[in-house]
């Protein structure tokens, strides 16, 4: 039979490991939508809408993107610092195109709206990188 002190030390070690792991690894789910408007070949409006999910998302991770962390602790900061990489990732997932063009008396005007419908993303914050996964 082991002594009381020995049990206490092992319990403390296990607790400390759990504590350090929980502080190093943190996962969160976010709802993201994206939309940009082009009028007459010129970019008119561009918006990312990101919100933490209020309830757990259904689905399994599909594609993932790894980004190096520079002190960010949420997806909003991560996207603002890695805008181009995240946009390319979204383009791979799929975008909806709604294009309208009107030609009146040989004068043309056009508008294109590109959207990504609200989708759920899981973000795993690790020690020095974050993994963003699309849930579907």
């Amino acid at each position, binding site marked *: 039979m082991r002594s009381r002190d020995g049990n206490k030390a092992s319990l403390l070690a296990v607790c400390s490991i759990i504590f350090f792991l929980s502080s190093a690894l943190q996962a969160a789910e976010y709802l993201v939508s994206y939309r940009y408007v082009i009028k007459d070949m010129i970019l008119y409006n561009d918006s990312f809408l990101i919100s933490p999910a209020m309830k757990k998302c259904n689905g399994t991770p599909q594609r993932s993107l790894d980004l190096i962390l520079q002190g960010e602790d949420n997806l909003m900061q991560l996207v603002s610092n890695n805008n181009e990489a995240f946009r390319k990732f979204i*383009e791979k997932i799929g975008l909806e195109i709604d294009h309208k063009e009107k030609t009146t008396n040989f004068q043309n005007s056009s508008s294109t709206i590109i959207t990504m419908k609200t989708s759920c993303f899981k973000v795993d914050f690790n020690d020095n990188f974050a993994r963003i996964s699309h849930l579907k």
Partner: protein
Amino acid sequence: MKYSMLLVALLSSSTLFAQNEHKEAYSIENTNVAQVTPQMNHAEEKVLEVNHSMLISVIGQGVAPMNTASPAQAYALAKRAATADAYRLIAEKVKGVRVDGQDVIKNMMVKRSTVRTSVNAMIRNANVVETTFKEGLCEVEMEIKLAYSQFAQ
């Protein structure tokens, strides 16, 4: 007896004639089909076949706005507009364009001529091949690979 023989002869001749007519009709139909088939084959249209893929390549164009803070911003904005244009071109090729036209004619003269086109599609897995920026115009070459399995139900 004579009358009955005559009646039988008449009937047999009429049925033979009818058979000949039927044969002629068939031959006309067959020749028509033979004439139509080459015309149908003449219009060569690319069709996505089983176990084959098709590569669609487009070049989208975008213009930088007049009031930009820096050339880098102008490039970034023009590139995004060009990317959207490339997406639209792919959507037009894959899914097609809806076209509505309206002409208003008064006193034998065209008062107003309007053409509206619209495209609605979802694009996934398109790749940007090349981007060029010259004199405020950005061109993005984009391609997409279509496979039969993507459309098979």
